């Protein structure tokens, strides 16, 4: 018995090694499946880039997967009709300010919930979680009315202020804070007689850095992709964020395909770049938020 067992174990180990190294039929099928799915994910964006370099005549008559010479023509054509960089700047401004605001307010709130044991804490936090279940469209009509009363329709504030109270960010930061900021740090700051808000701004906030930056990228993309709210609350062409501007272009210049492809490409390109740089953090924050939830 005693001599047989090690041999068995060794055989099992060899078998396992062999099955790892050998390219079995099953493995080939799995890789083919994975690769074809990956190709499907990339093709639309590849075609988008390719078609933005062709003129109407080519796009309307042939299939091509090679770049053409008309990128500059399409661009000058587009620039003469719509101010795409204005849309770009709008998107950047709206996404940037609402991300910074919602992260700061989210951190304040998360800190309040994580480190202070005040009365009604659990109830308020459950309320906050429950609001995440409510679809945003419920508020849309009331919001339109509210901002029209305040005279803030067609202003950036109409998008930024509601976005500043982001319940998901609060939830995410609170979870992170509970596990990674020891009470002792806060206690010792208190002993050194630092004010509560000074402790937060100078000690807690810097420790939150990595979590906040991951969340920030995610919030930024979410805001960049926001479509319905600006479509409803904005009226002037020079206020629209990029995705709305590009979608509206379809109605005005529906037959100008090179221009449309280029517009779509410009509205997606920042996302491609952000993702190429930060894919790990983005995927990580999605996973963390979901599992903790």
């Amino acid at each position, binding site marked *: 018995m005693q001599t047989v067992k090690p041999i068995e174990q060794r055989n099992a180990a060899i078998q396992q090694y062999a099955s790892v190294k050998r390219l079995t039929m099953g493995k080939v099928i799995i890789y083919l499946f994975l690769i074809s799915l990956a190709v499907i994910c990339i093709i639309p964006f590849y075609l988008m880039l390719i078609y933005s370099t062709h003129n109407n005549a080519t*796009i309307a008559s042939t299939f091509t997967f090679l770049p053409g010479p008309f990128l500059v023509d399409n661009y000058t054509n587009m620039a003469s009709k719509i101010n795409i960089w204005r849309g770009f700047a709008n998107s950047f401004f709206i996404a940037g300010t609402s991300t910074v605001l919602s992260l700061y307010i989210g951190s304040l709130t998360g800190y309040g919930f994580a480190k202070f044991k005040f009365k009604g804490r659990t109830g308020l936090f459950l309320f906050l979680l429950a609001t995440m279940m409510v679809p945003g469209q*419920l508020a849309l009509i009331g919001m339109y*009315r509210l901002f029209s009363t305040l005279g803030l329709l067609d202003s950036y504030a109409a998008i930024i202020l509601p976005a500043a109270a982001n319940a998901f960010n609060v939830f995410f930061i609170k979870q992170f804070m509970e596990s990674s900021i020891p009470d002792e740090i806060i206690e010792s700051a208190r002993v050194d007689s630092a004010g509560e808000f000074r402790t937060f701004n100078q000690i807690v906030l810097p420790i939150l850095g990595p979590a906040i930056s991951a969340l920030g990228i995610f919030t930024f993309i979410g805001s960049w992709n926001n479509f319905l709210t600006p479509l409803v609350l904005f009226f002037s062409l020079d206020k629209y964020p990029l995705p709305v501007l590009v979608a509206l272009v*379809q109605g005005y210049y529906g037959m100008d395909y090179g221009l449309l492809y280029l517009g779509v490409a410009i509205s997606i390109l920042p996302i491609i770049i952000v993702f190429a740089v930060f894919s790990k953090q983005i995927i990580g924050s999605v996973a963390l938020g979901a599992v903790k939830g």
Partner: protein
Amino acid sequence: MFAKSIRKDHYGYYFIAPFFILFAIFGLYPILYSLYISFTNFDGITTPDFVGIGNYVAVLQDPLFYKTLFNTLFIWGVSVVPQLTVSLVLAFILNDKLLKGRDIFRAVYFFPNIVTAASLGLLVSLIFDWQSGGLNHFLVQVGLIDNPINWKNDPWFMRLIVSSILFFQYFGYSMVIYLAGLQGIDPALQEAAQMDGAKKKHIFIHIIVPMLRPIILFQMITSIIGGIQIFDQPFTLTNGTGGPDRAAMTSIMYLYNVAFQSTRFGYGAAIAFCLFIIIILLSVVSFMMTKRKSRA
């Protein structure tokens, strides 16, 4: 020290106050105001008249509401089933540490999720265009069809194409969430089963799926909430028209048309609250379904 920390606890209110003030003004108040408007015939200009449940009665008798609800549920259902199953299988495959290129596959599958949904709808619209679309040219060129197909003229095809966009955008997202759930399962469990001669298929069905049940429930409920809100993709895909015979007009598109194009705000608000009730009902049903399964 204990006494000291108790004395500081009221500071918590100051820290959470900005959020709740902002939320009360720009989140809660608009929702309650929408609720109030849903009982009026508010048109955006004249003062709202109280009409009781009149709007709700009208919504429940509105054939177009049912049609858009059917469109929404059909589009959602057709996309969500493959989305949740394919992503579960993918997560299982990609959780294997011996697989090469795991991170690359993960990133590539996730990528469509963060692409602007509105732009994606427009892009698909361009690719499926009858005369100028890349797809028709490709199919003609390889000889699969003789003449370009007018894809966007077929109601069922339009619904399916929105479903496909949603699948395309969300299978990678669900996969990442499943993968995170898989990280929480003790690898010893799988190894033990493997030692006992269990095949991958059986490990998947008898260990992985049951242990991921809470995550599956989470995915189902979030996908219901998201599914009822489908707007960006069909809106840009059909240039705001809803496609042939309004086949791809979702409920939120209908809400948008009613409230902001026809300025019937009261009726639009009633639609919004009907949709909210449907979301709650569906969430409860899916919650009970997963509960029952786990008892069996």
